[in-house]
């Protein structure tokens, strides 16, 4: 019986239908058959529903697991590794692989993060896939990059745009699919999966992959936000260069390597010359543009030096302040090498910068400190480079100065003095002395020159030669100058109140170039005149030709504005500097002051002829002349004879405090 499939004894399971009921039975049988069909159909529907439900529950659970992992992951690799494994297991792929996409979106680069669910024979395919690169549009990942959505290849062997075809054939790879990891609309990474069997494209699976792509994108987004934050805290927002914090970190690392027997380091502190003028003249916006341009030139110079030089030294360029940059050289740094780098940086600024329509020259003062065994902390190296820069800055030209201990002492003293100057202004330690200016033919006092003195609590009275150059360098000259102008005018107002009617002596005030070129200088001048009530014609501002060298156009405008107000202006120390005749011609001065050195040397024919030439020239230009440093009657008489209108000097009166200087009889000639 068995074997053929049939069972014996069939008759036992049969029954007989009574006569006459046959039609009814047939009808019932048909109905039964329909019912059975209906039941099968209902079961099939329910079965499909259950399968779909099961699948969607599994996918939701998968998505939930990956989302949870993504939410708790701080790096993409970890989240990706987990997701690749889970997707392979859940969706029955044999191999899952991942790619990162650089910001420009040009390519997909395999990042060696993959999962092999079923190793049998797939190893060569994995080996190729873990380090491959695809350009946009090329291969499976390339297509996902271009299309920004999942791409399915039912049979890679029949796909014309599948680059790993040979190895895929060898390993029996059949189905493949890939989907993008998205941040907004940008593809940041790509996942690809392969199977040795056919896997039919499935809308639900594609939808789940898209969701996974979004969830994993959040990890990338978080990582980027963190990196951006970190970058911001370590970089200067204007130039994008490392900032002081990052510099300190790298410098410390280099220093520690050195102390454990590693190579050395050097620090170059760079301060720009000419930048402040650009900022003052053209505003911060253009100033910022120039800073960016400077940082690019420095970066390019260092970049090509490292590329070409074959030097083992690592260079880090940082912006540490307004117009201050630092280069850290880590490695075996000889003094000559540091000097060479400094020179490269200086040459990078040779070509002038543009500020609006104008050319804006910028140069760099550079201080260098090389790490010596004596240093206990890297901050000391940076500090000494800073001191060397300070020294470099004190010269007339852009200098490079290498730190030495004796230089350190010198600079430290000067810096202490700077600090003292700042404090002295607020402590009102400065006083004005007044030296009379006398009409050489009348012998009568026509006015005074206000001269600043520092009444130092410990050192006594200090001459301006000792502190004015320093105040000019550190910028405190501006506040000191403001005080001088204010105080001289106030004193003059007091003097005028004691003078007989119709006699109003004038006061000459020296204005430093940086003060004269302040954008609000004229406004300040008006305010002082208004507050003190001094007639503008009684105030004479004396500037040196240095101001015109810095910015002749602005000097001309400011001089004209002074003239508009009625304030007179004088060119101080004429004959000592360039003494360019073009300044005399183009700048509207009222007075010219002959420097004391020519007066002192009037015995010599050469000096004499210079003095006479200046006097002739002034006469032709309509300028009144003051001769400084008259110490003898002979000098005074000669100058008067040659037409010099005014004189000043010990013969005519020494500088004295207000109380003494202003005690004079205006009706009685001094001479």
């Amino acid at each position: 019986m068995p074997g053929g499939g049939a069972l014996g004894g069939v008759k036992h399971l049969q029954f007989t239908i009574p006569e006459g009921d046959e039609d009814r039975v047939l009808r019932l049988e048909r109905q039964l058959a329909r019912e059975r069909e209906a039941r099968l159909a209902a079961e099939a529907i329910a079965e499909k529903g259950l399968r779909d439900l099961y699948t969607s529950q599994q996918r939701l659970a998968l998505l939930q697991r990956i989302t949870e992992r993504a939410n708790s992951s701080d790096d993409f690799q970890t989240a990706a590794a987990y997701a690749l494994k889970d997707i392979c297991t859940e969706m029955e792929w044999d191999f899952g692989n991942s790619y990162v996409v650089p910001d420009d979106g040009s390519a997909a680069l395999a990042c060696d993060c993959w999962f092999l669910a079923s190793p049998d024979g797939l190893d060569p395919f994995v080996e190729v896939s873990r380090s491959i690169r695809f350009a946009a549009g090329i291969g499976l990942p390339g297509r996902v990059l271009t299309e920004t959505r999942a791409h399915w290849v039912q049979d890679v062997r029949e796909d014309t745009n599948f680059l790993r075809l040979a190895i895929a054939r060898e390993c029996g790879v059949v189905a493949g699919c890939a989907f993008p990891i998205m941040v907004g609309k940008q593809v940041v990474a790509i996942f690809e999966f392969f199977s040795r069997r056919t896997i039919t494209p499935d809308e639900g699976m594609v939808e789940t992959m898209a969701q996974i792509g979004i969830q994993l994108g959040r990890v990338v987004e978080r990582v980027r936000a963190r990196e951006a934050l970190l970058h911001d805290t370590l970089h200067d927002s204007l130039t994008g260069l490392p900032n002081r914090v990052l510099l300190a970190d790298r410098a410390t690392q280099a220093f520690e390597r050195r102390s454990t027997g590693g190579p050395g380091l050097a620090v170059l502190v760079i301060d720009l010359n000419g930048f402040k003028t650009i900022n003052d003249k053209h505003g911060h916006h253009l100033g910022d543009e120039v800073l960016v341009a400077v940082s690019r030139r420095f970066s390019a110079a260092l970049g090509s030096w490292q590329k070409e030089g074959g030097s083992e030294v690592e260079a880090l360029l940082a912006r540490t302040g307004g117009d201050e940059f630092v280069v850290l050289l880590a490695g075996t740094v000889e003094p000559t090498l540091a000097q060479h780098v400094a020179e490269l940086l200086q040459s990078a600024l040779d070509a002038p910068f543009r500020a609006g329509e104008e050319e804006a020259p910028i140069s760099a003062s550079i201080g260098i400190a090389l790490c010596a065994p004596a240093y206990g902390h890297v901050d000391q190296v940076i500090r000494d480079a800073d001191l060397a820069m300070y020294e470099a800055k004190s010269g007339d030209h852009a200098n490079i100065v290498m730190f030495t201990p004796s230089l350190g002492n010198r600079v430290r003293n000067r810096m202490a003095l700077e600090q003292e100057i700042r404090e002295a202004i607020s402590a009102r330690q400065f006083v004005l002395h007044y030296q009379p200016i006398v009409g050489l033919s009348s012998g009568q006092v026509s006015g005074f020159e206000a001269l600043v003195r520092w009444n130092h609590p410990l050192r006594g009275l200090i001459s301006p030669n000792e502190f004015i150059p320093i105040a000019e360098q550190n910028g405190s000259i501006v506040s000191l100058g403001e005080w001088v102008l204010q105080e001289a005018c106030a004193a003059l107002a007091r003097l005028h109140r004691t003078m007989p009617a119709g006699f109003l002596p004038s006061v000459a005030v020296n204005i430093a170039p940086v003060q004269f070129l302040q954008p609000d200088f004229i406004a300040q001048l008006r305010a002082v005149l208004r507050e003190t009530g001094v007639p503008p014609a009684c105030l004479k501002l004396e500037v040196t030709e240095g101001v015109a060298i810095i910015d002749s156009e602005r000097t001309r405008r400011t001089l004209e504005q002074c003239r508009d107000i009625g304030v007179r202006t004088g060119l101080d120390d004429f004959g000592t500097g360039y003494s360019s005749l073009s300044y005399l011609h183009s700048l509207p001065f009222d007075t010219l002051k002959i420097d004391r050195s020519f007066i002192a040397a009037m015995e010599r024919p050469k000096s004499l002829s210079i003095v006479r030439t200046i006097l002739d020239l002034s006469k032709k230009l309509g300028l009144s002349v003051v001769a400084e440093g008259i110490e003898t009657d002979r000098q005074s008489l000669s100058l008067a004879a040659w037409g010099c209108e005014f004189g000043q000097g010990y013969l005519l009166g020494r500088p004295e405090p207000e109380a003494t200087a202003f005690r004079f009889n205006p009706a009685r000639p001094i001479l």
Partner: protein
Amino acid sequence: MKGIILNLLEEAVIAEFGDAAWPNLIDLAGVSGVYTSLGSYPDEDVYALVRAASEALTTSQEEILRWFGRRAIPLLADRYGVFFEHHRTARSLILSLNEIIHPEVRKLYSGAGCPHFQFSDHADGRLVIGYQSPRKMCQLMHGFVEGTSTYFAETVELEHLACMQDGSPQCRVAVHWAG
């Protein structure tokens, strides 16, 4: 027992003995007979039906189970073609039971107690299937293996090396495909 098994049994009986045979068998076995493929029913119903058929046909219960196993395979292939289409041999399909077919069954019947098969190679090259189930239906498995072989047009010989019915802790069936 899953309703699908009872449904397949119904189809097999009707196909072999006609429409009336199944209601008769239900009556003889004294079971409810209301079975849908997605439901679960007492194992006792299957035993009762097999017993009734065995008595009515004066055939051993083992033979009834083997017959059913053989007949069920083409019906299953008809209904779940997807499980068969990836395989070219009976051996390949049988080896996929634990990993592919049973997980699929569990998708439909959460918590379904599917028997786990242990596969090993006998020294003489035969495939040995280890089976362990409180239902002790190794004969049904025997029929399934025969039916599957027929489906793939293969000739098969089975030998029960050990059987739970004889007190062995596990049934072990050696399978040999000719050719």
